[in-house]
């Protein structure tokens, strides 16, 4: 199949759009089963300590209550798999394991009742006595533990000492929350001692592995379904505590149990993006060429036990900083700071969105220091190979992204001096940054089946992979319709079920790159088998006719994508260039993003509609990261200050700038997979925040290094700056 096929890369209609807007798409929380019972939770009121007693007497008297689970009566659960690649849980300790409290909001009791309202009411009647212990919830108050394997090349210290130009700066990012629109939801149902779970997850097979282990079942006896998921951004990779508890309760009650987290529970118990403190040291020649880059990150993790028990979570900031620019000397150091908070996790572009905030910011400072244009500085340090491993990229077009982006934006008209553009009450600034995300691909399989139907054939494409709203349904339909040269209406796609051919978790922008080539491979097999029934090699392929000739009512094939071989010669990476215009009204602390231009190289685009929305959404995510989003915890009382969407601010319509995204055409990464596609789900966010901060500096000459760039921070920085 060639990548110049008629449909690949063009804008398709989302095939699942109609059932979504008409409410027919069934998300986990929409599942209704006979006898369904409903769960609600009691979250810990303290951040650290012990539960002394849980008094459920009043709650048990409340109407409709069926079951209350606490650590005293939860019953046995097996060990949970972790880190062995089969499934993940946020805590190796199962929920309600003992009396220990590690963070505020941790589930201390589960109430199941006939209705959600009765469950919530009864939960409010549960009385818990605690023995509180001292806690730390602020990364700046915590002690760090150094992680051991430190990537390095060359001799950073020596280079930093000798360099003509050096930069040494601290950048920070707060705890940010993925906030998918669909809250985390599970319906657990036991059917003849087998478990069926409808879950809002990024990974049905991960769920299956965790649940099977927890209940001592073989994997086949656990079925997990997630045909539709309403966003995730990394927060649904782990099998959540409430999912396990729903299955416990359903077994105990011999009734299906539905558990839907409240927004406040999502915001306090689901792992967020870890807070980081990053020190970047750069050494450069006078012409801007980098000599050394040292990147020291502190990021928060869960409690000390997390560090002691096993690999703690760390925000992988250095993943990108070590590969991006040509630089002979590099060193990364990583400390984790245990805090009494829910264990952090991966949030859209983990590592890139945080690491590039620091690195690209520091580069902008280097450009100012050296009197260089920020774009010219990037060009000067461009690397056509992974700067750390030295492997050449199989397909790399970053310079083209820079050039096209600059042209679309009008970058050449930029006057380098800060405070050089004004319009009415606002200073205008232009900034830019590099966007980057690795190409990821994992083993996957897809089944394609052709059914003889009246008037032709119908194709069913099936895989366990999950569409988070990102566009996999449409991408698979496009690939298969194209490969079999059939109209789109003839294709049905089935996703998100452990009974379907296995696929990896949706994460790291990997899924289209893993699953679409597998679908293509399946189609190739089918074609080969059916084409054998042609009467002449030049006879056009009519699948219905060929099936009839073969005497078959249907035919199917499974296609697979393999794991990447360890000794690959090439590296695979997506890149982009992002340009931003801001308007700043200093005395009002106001920063507004008015224009964003992004040009990306993501390999071959499979479907233009969903790729575009991924890139647009990524940019918007970046605007939120830059200007608004932060989860603050009161260091004295451990209160998560923003536990709803009126307080945890996401961009609203008025915050949305004019966004222009473009991708390079005809740049398939052909050694990466048969289609040449890498993912586009995350790269859109990666350069936005640093480009905004550099635009703010250009606008008013003030450097902001702590996200988000809120009015109070801008006013404080202005008060300290010598300019005004």
């Amino acid at each position, binding site marked *: 199949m060639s990548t110049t096929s008629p449909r690949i890369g063009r804008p398709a209609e989302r095939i699942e759009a109609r059932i979504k807007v008409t409410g027919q798409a069934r998300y986990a929380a929409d599942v209704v089963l006979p006898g369904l019972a409903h769960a609600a939770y009691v979250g810990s009121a303290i951040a650290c300590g012990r539960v002394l007693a849980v008094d459920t007497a009043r709650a048990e008297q409340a109407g409709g209550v069926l079951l209350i689970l606490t650590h005293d009566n939860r019953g046995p659960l097996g060990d949970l798999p972790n880190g062995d690649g089969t499934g993940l849980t946020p805590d190796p300790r199962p929920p309600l394991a003992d009396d220990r409290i590690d963070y505020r909001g941790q589930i201390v009791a589960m109430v199941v009742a006939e209705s959600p309202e009765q469950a919530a009411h009864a939960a*409010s009647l549960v009385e818990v006595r605690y023995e509180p212990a001292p806690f730390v919830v602020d990364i700046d108050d915590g002690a760090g533990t150094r992680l051991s394997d430190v990537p390095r090349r060359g001799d950073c210290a020596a280079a930093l000492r000798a360099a003509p130009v050096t930069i040494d700066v601290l950048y920070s990012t707060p705890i940010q929350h993925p906030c998918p629109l669909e809250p985390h939801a599970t319906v657990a149902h036991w059917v003849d001692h087998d478990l069926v779970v409808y879950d809002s997850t990024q990974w049905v097979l991960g769920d299956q592995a965790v649940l099977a282990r927890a209940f001592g079942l073989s994997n086949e006896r656990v079925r997990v379904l997630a045909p539709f998921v309403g966003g995730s951004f990394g927060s649904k990779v782990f099998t959540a505590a409430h999912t396990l508890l729903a299955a416990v309760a359903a077994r105990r009650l011999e009734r299906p149990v539905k558990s839907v987290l409240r927004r*406040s529970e999502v915001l306090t118990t689901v792992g967020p993006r870890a807070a980081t403190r990053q020190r970047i040291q750069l050494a450069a020649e006078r012409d801007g060429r980098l000599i050394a880059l040292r990147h020291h990150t502190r990021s928060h993790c869960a409690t000390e036990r997390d560090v002691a028990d096993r690999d703690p979570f760390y925000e992988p900031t250095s993943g990108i900083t070590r590969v991006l620019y040509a630089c002979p000397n590099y060193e990364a150091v990583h400390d984790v700071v245990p805090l009494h908070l829910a264990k952090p996790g991966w949030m859209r572009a983990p590592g890139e969105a945080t690491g590039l905030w620091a690195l690209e910011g520091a580069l902008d400072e280097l450009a100012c220091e050296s009197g260089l244009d920020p774009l010219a500085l990037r060009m000067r340090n461009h690397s056509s190979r992974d700067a750390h491993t030295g492997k050449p990229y199989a397909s790399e077009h970053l310079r083209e992204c820079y050039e096209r982006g600059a042209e679309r934006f009008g970058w050449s008209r930029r006057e380098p001096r800060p405070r050089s553009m004004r319009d009415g009450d606002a200073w205008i600034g232009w900034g830019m940054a590099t966007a980057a995300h690795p190409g990821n691909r994992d083993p996957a399989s897809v089944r394609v089946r052709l059914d003889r139907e009246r008037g032709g054939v119908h194709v069913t494409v099936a895989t366990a992979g999950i569409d988070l709203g990102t566009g996999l349904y449409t991408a698979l339909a496009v690939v298969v319709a194209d490969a079999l040269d059939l109209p789109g209406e003839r294709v049905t796609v089935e996703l998100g079920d452990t009974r379907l051919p296995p696929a990896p978790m949706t994460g790291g922008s990997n899924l289209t790159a893993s699953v679409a080539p597998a679908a293509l491979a399946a189609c190739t097999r089918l074609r080969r088998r059916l084409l054998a029934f042609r009467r002449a090699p030049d006879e056009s392929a009519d699948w219905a006719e060929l099936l009839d000739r073969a005497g078959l009512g249907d035919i199917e094939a499974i296609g697979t994508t393999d794991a990447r071989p360890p000794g690959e010669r090439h590296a695979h990476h997506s890149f982009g260039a992002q340009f931003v215009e801001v308007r700043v009204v200093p005395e009002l*602390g106001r920063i507004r993003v008015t224009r964003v231009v992004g040009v990306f190289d993501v390999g071959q685009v499979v479907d233009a509609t969903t790729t575009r929305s991924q890139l647009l959404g990524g940019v918007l995510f970046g605007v939120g990261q830059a200007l608004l989003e932060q989860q603050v915890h009161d260091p004295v009382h451990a*209160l998560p*200050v923003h*536990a709803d969407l009126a307080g945890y601010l996401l961009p609203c319509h*008025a915050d949305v700038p004019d966004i222009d995204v473009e991708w390079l055409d005809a740049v398939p990464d052909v050694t990466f997979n048969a289609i040449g596609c890498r993912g586009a789900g995350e790269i859109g966010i990666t350069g936005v925040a640093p480009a905004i901060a550099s635009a703010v500096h250009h606008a008013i000459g003030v450097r902001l290094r702590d996200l988000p760039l809120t009015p109070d921070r801008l006013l404080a920085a202005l*008060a300290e700056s010598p300019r005004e």
Partner: protein
Amino acid sequence: MRPFTYVEGISVADAAAAVHAAPAAMFLAGGTAIVDLMKLGVLAPAALVDVQRLPLGDIELDDRRARIGACVRNAQLAEHPEIRARWPVVREALLSGMSAQLRNMSTVAGNILQRTRCPYYRDPHSACNKRVPGSGCAVQTGWDRDAAVLGGSPHCLAVFPSDLATALAILDAIVYTRRGDGGARRLPFDGFHRLPGDTPERDTVLDHGELVTHLELPDLAIARRSHYFKVRDRASYDFALASAAVALDLERGHVRDARIALGGVATRPWRCTAAEQSLRGKRAELASFRAAADLALADAVARTHNGFKIELARHVVVRALSELAARPG
């Protein structure tokens, strides 16, 4: 959420009497504020008396005043052409707040009776005198970025969040009520919201079971040139970090009279009479506005993280007055 009974109010007198009779009963209007607080476990009324069907949904106007029913929707008030012409600050304040959906649902009385957004008030586990009198005030040692810089007490520092109330504060508005015992009151808006002092649990002077029936805006020449200016974290759909409602009566480039109230920075709608006084007779120019803004914030007290609000509010006052003075007419 605790189970509660729901009653639809039939007449003004019955509704007031029904709440008056039951200590744990409350009025329900659009529900956009109260229901949230019930779900959080902050309020737990045993009964809700719905006032939305009461005959309090009209805006009556003549050349002396506007009489606004308590159940007029915030959107309805904002869109009224005569309100827009005679009291533009009301419309601007309303449109600067909430979302379109919330404005369609919520009422004028509910708006001025909404509770603080202080996160400790909204968390049943935290010490909060406003929620549980005598339990303490977590903000005093906790996260105070959003706390008030004006009107606070050692017992409470919570910002009163209503934009509409900030506008009403400069309009000589009057609140009409019906009490549960059948009496009625006419309450000047000026004293309607209370300072927290040592009883922060009471936001207003209303008694239990006292139903707001109307708001009155007397016709006011100065209100025709009035304006609301608000700064918030997000570009829209967000509460004020600092806001100002202002009105100017100008004659040949001089200020004959001025009105200024602050929002987002104080424990109640904050009228700035000294600042208003300072403007009278002055040229309508930046220097006078700056001096007035300094006076408006003269008594402000910063805590650990909310000091920026003082500087910000000064700029907001200057900006509001400058924009208004530059308006034709």
